[in-house]
């Protein structure tokens, strides 16, 4: 706390946390987390079920209050200036966030309006988003008729209409086929390249972490187990180690837990929605 008060956030960081913690009753979901994500990075948050990834994202996106510690996103304190943070972020939740009873166009319009886009800018951004997500032909169809990949692309488009500085995605490729998964990666790389967005994703997919992310942090039982570039982490574990080895090495004990009912509900819910 003291360091936080004195030093404040590192000015160049897109995301910074100091001793960030979240308790549910006696259960410590996030425990003294220190993170620092530089602008323009694609940062991967890894960890077994129940490690605290979604909880961390919810705090950073102002949906959840931390129990203690501090967090800054795009230079603003999430607890003190939540609205300033919301103006600068996009978020694709782990669960289904596009409205199945609306068309893609209606979903995009709603997001654009709530993000404060008006008039000609709004219209331009919405058509840009439809083109970007490759949904122009399906724009007038109800989203409940879409495939999982189309829904994910729509959700990413909805979350980036206002060109956020920081984009959060919670397991963006869960349940997608390999082609749809690659399309999502391409979209994210494109956003980073053209808009300079900082992107934080969570994933259980080690290939995704390896291919997409510049930097990784591995959470284990709410604590930061290790952080670094994919290659550095592999080198730490062994000469020919893969990210799977890294994951097992730093969270081995948790593999047989496999999370509790809440975790299963969250991740199965995500799979159901696509089925």
């Amino acid at each position, binding site marked *: 706390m003291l360091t936080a008060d004195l030093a404040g956030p590192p000015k160049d960081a897109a995301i910074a946390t100091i001793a960030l913690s979240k308790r549910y009753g006696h259960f410590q979901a996030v425990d003294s987390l220190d993170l620092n994500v530089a602008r323009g990075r694609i940062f991967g948050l890894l960890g077994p079920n129940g490690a605290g990834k979604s909880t961390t994202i*919810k705090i950073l996106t102002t949906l959840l209050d931390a129990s203690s510690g501090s967090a800054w996103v795009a230079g603003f304190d999430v607890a003190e200036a939540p*609205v300033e943070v919301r103006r600068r972020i996009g978020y694709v939740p782990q*669960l289904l966030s596009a409205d199945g009873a609306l068309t893609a166009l209606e979903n995009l319009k709603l997001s654009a309006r709530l993000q404060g886009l008006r008039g000609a800018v709004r219209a331009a951004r919405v058509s840009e988003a439809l083109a970007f997500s490759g949904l122009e032909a399906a724009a007038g169809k109800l989203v409940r008729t879409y495939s999982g990949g189309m829904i994910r692309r729509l959700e990413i488009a909805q*979350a980036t209409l206002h060109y956020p500085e920081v984009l959060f995605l919670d397991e963006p490729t869960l349940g997608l086929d390999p082609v749809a998964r690659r399309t999502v990666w391409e979209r994210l790389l494109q956003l980073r390249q053209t808009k300079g967005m900082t992107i934080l994703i969570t994933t259980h997919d080690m290939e995704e972490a390896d291919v997409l992310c510049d930097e990784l942090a591995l959470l284990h039982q709410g604590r930061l187990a290790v952080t670094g570039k994919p290659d550095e982490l592999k080198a730490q574990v062994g000469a020919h180690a893969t990210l799977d080895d890294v994951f097992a090495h730093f969270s081995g004990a948790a593999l047989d837990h496999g999370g509790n009912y809440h975790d299963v509900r969250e991740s199965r819910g995500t799979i159901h*929605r696509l089925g």
Partner: protein
Amino acid sequence: MFAWLYESAAVADAEVRKLMRDPTELFSRAVQPVLWLAVFGQVFSQVRGIPTGKLDYLDFMAPGILAQSILFSAIFYGIAIIWERDLGIIHKLLVTPASRGALVLGKAMAAGLRGLVQAVVVYLVAVALQVDIRWEPLPMLTMAAGVFLGSCIFSTFSLIIACIVKTRERFMGIGQLLTMPLFFASNALYPLELMPGWLRVIAAFNPLTYLVDVLRSAMIVGGESAYSMPTSFGIMLLVFAGLLGLAARLYPGLAR
């Protein structure tokens, strides 16, 4: 202020589109008022069991049944909110800079518009049963305003319950538990004067009473309101403002 209304309108627009895609729901909601008016109303106006002055009993209860149908459909609005929570739709709305109050107001406005459609249905039934309807513009406007405001009140009440109980099962239980007492502790089926003292006290705190009271003179030829229009609308607006404030505070809790 302008941004606030703009955000509410955006939410209301999306909600209304969803409602329009599901007209079966609207028709299934019309069944209850038909039964109440056609069966209960017809029988009771024959037996003259409830003294309603000069008014035929069917005429007397028609505004009550309109108010009831508003209450019953608005009170289950919370189910949709819980559904949105079980997905991630609420999370998506809450990470935008939009005011929480505006999000909640938008939902209420959509419920208000849906209430108006409901009113059309009840009017059709009432006309078919030869209820003596007032067709002048001012009473019609008063009726529409009352129906809109009443729908806003009960849908926001429902949203608050959804924010508290958070699961569908518990919500269904509480929804059933609340609607009947709200209905019976009002002047929908019998005049206030017939109630025992304790029930009258409860009825005076029941927003449904004021809605029915407004509708009684606005909808029916010869119908009389016990309270003045400014009193009834004033109370309903106050109740709505209070509920809206509470809902705006509780709504973000759904994403936790």
